[in-house]
C-alpha cells in the first residue's frame, strides 16, 4: 500500500458560511451542469426576526411601533407577535440554525442579501422567492391590526432593503388576510414594486378564502397578472392538530391540512370560474395532498353538483391549472408512484421547484433533476422554466456556482 498525505481538517463549530455549508450541493450543481440553465426557487426563506428592530421601525402607528420595539427589547416572556411551539431544528441536529450567527458578511451589503446569494450560488439557483419565517405563523395572531401593521412594515422593509438592492431575490409579499381591506390595500401599494412577483397568504388561519370581502383583492391581483399563493405551515394551537404529540405529526399534517381546506373552499365555491385568469399557487404542502384531494373532490362532485353549481368541470380539472411548489417532495421507493403524482398535477407545466432553504427539510434541485422518468426539458421546466413564465423572469442563467475544492 502507498502512504500519502492528504488534507486533514478538524471540525469547527464556531464558524459558518452559507456557501461552504452547501459545498456538496455545489459539487452536485457542477456535475449536473446547472450553470447551463435557469433554476428558480419559488419558496426560500430568511429569518426576518433577526432584523425586527429595523422592520418595526416601518410600523405606521406610533403606539404599535413602540409596543413592538419595547417587546423586542426584552426577551424571555410573552411578546408582541406571539410564538409557535415547535422544534424545527430537531433539537440542534440541524446545525446551520444555530451556527449561522457566526457567519461573517461584508458591511456594505445587507447581511440577508449576502447569505442568501451564497446559498443560492452553491445550490445553483438563479432567482429565489424569499419569504419570512416566524411571520408564517402570524395568521393565527388574535389581533388583526397587529398582523396588518407588521405585514405593512415587513413588506416596506423587504422592498426597500432587499428587493430594491438585489435583482436575484424576489418575493410574493405577505397579505394581511385577517383584515380584507388591509389585504386589498397591500396589493394596491406594492403591486408594481421592484421584485414583487405576487402575493402570499400564510395558510394557518381561520378566515375562509371564499368570503366576499376578498373578491376585490383577487380581482385586483388577477388584473395585475400576478399569482396569489398559499404558503403552508402548521399550528399546534389548532384543535385537531393538538391531538398530535410529536413535532413530526403536527408538521406532516399541518402543512397539508390548512392548504387542503383552503383549496377545497377555493374550488367548490367556484373561484376558478370567477377569476379564470388568476394564477394560484400552493406552497410547501408537498404533492400527495393534491393527488388525493383531486380524487376525493371529483368523486363527491359527481353526486353533489348542487353543492358547487358554479363549477363547469370536475374539481381536478381546475386544480390541474394551478401551480404547486415541489418541496417537501415525497420520494416513494417505487418511482412509478411519484410519476403518477406528477401526471395527476400536470407537473410538466404546473410544478415549480422550491428549496425551502434554509429550513430543516429543504430540497436540492437534484430531487427533480435526478428523477428517472423525466426528460431533460421537463426537468428544466420544473426547475426554472415554469416559474420564469409565471414570474416573468428573464430566461438566462445568472448564477456563479462556486468551486470549494
Amino acid at each position: 500500500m502507498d502512504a500519502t498525505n492528504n488534507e486533514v481538517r478538524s471540525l469547527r463549530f464556531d464558524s459558518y458560511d452559507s456557501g461552504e455549508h452547501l459545498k456538496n450541493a455545489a459539487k452536485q450543481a457542477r456535475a449536473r451542469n446547472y450553470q447551463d440553465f435557469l433554476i428558480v426557487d419559488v419558496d426560500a426563506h430568511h429569518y426576518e426576526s433577526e432584523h425586527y428592530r429595523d422592520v418595526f421601525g416601518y410600523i405606521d402607528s406610533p403606539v404599535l411601533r413602540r409596543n413592538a420595539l419595547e417587546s423586542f427589547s426584552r426577551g424571555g416572556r410573552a411578546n408582541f407577535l406571539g410564538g409557535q411551539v415547535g422544534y424545527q431544528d430537531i433539537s440542534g441536529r440541524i446545525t446551520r440554525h444555530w451556527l449561522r450567527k457566526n457567519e461573517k458578511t461584508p458591511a456594505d451589503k445587507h447581511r440577508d442579501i449576502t447569505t442568501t446569494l451564497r446559498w443560492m450560488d452553491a445550490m445553483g439557483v438563479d432567482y429565489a422567492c424569499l419569504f419570512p419565517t416566524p411571520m408564517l405563523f402570524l395568521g393565527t395572531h388574535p389581533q388583526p391590526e397587529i398582523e396588518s401593521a407588521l405585514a405593512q412594515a415587513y413588506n416596506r422593509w423587504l422592498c426597500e432593503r432587499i428587493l430594491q438592492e438585489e435583482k436575484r431575490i424576489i418575493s410574493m409579499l405577505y397579505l394581511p388576510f385577517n383584515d380584507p381591506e388591509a389585504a386589498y390595500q397591500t396589493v394596491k401599494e406594492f403591486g408594481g414594486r421592484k421584485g414583487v412577483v405576487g402575493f402570499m397568504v400564510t395558510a394557518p388561519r381561520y378566515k375562509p378564502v371564499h368570503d366576499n370581502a376578498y373578491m376585490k383583492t383577487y380581482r385586483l391581483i388577477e388584473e395585475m397578472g400576478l399569482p396569489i399563493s398559499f404558503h403552508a405551515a402548521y399550528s399546534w394551537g389548532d384543535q385537531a392538530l393538538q391531538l398530535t404529540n410529536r413535532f413530526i405529526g403536527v408538521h406532516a399534517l399541518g402543512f397539508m391540512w390548512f392548504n387542503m381546506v383552503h383549496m377545497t373552499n377555493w374550488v367548490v365555491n367556484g373561484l376558478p370560474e370567477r377569476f379564470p385568469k388568476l394564477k394560484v399557487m400552493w406552497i410547501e404542502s408537498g404533492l400527495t395532498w393534491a393527488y388525493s384531494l383531486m380524487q376525493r373532490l371529483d368523486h363527491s362532485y359527481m353526486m353533489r353538483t348542487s353543492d358547487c353549481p358554479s363549477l363547469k368541470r370536475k374539481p381536478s380539472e381546475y386544480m390541474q391549472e394551478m401551480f404547486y411548489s415541489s418541496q417537501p417532495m415525497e420520494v416513494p421507493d417505487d418511482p412509478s408512484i411519484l410519476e403518477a403524482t406528477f401526471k395527476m398535477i400536470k407537473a410538466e407545466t404546473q410544478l415549480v421547484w422550491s428549496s425551502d432553504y434554509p429550513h430543516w427539510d429543504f430540497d436540492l434541485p437534484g430531487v427533480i433533476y435526478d428523477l428517472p422518468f423525466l426528460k431533460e426539458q421537463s426537468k428544466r421546466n420544473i426547475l426554472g422554466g415554469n416559474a420564469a413564465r409565471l414570474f416573468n423572469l428573464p430566461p438566462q442563467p445568472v448564477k456563479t456556482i462556486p468551486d470549494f475544492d
Partner: protein
Amino acid sequence: MTEIFVAKAGDITDGDRRIVRTPKGEIGVFNHKGAFHAYANNCVHSGGPACEGILVNKVVDIIAEDRTYQGQTFSDVMHFVCPWHGYEFDIETGVCAGNPKLKIKKFETVVRGGDLYLVA
C-alpha cells in the same frame, strides 16, 4: 488501496474527529470510545456532509411491561447526524437510524506506530 495518514492516533480523542480529503472524496474519521470509525462525508439522502454534524445518542421510547408509554431516554448507541436534514447513523456501523437498508459507506482504519491511517 491507499493508506492515508490522518493524524497521530493520540491526537484524536474520544468524541473527536477529522475530515480527510482523499481522491475518493471527503471521509470523516471518528474516535468513539477509543475505536476509530471512518465514513464517506456524503449522506445517502441528498449528499450532505454527514460526518460534519453533531454526535448524539439514539433516542428511545420507554415502554413499560404493560405497554404504557413512560417517556423517553437516550440509549448507549451513538449517532452521527447529517447537519443538512438530520439523517442519523450508528457511529459503529454506519447504518441509518430511519432505514436499516441504508448504510453510509464505511472505510477501514489502521493504527501503526501510533499513527492513524485511513484505507481508501
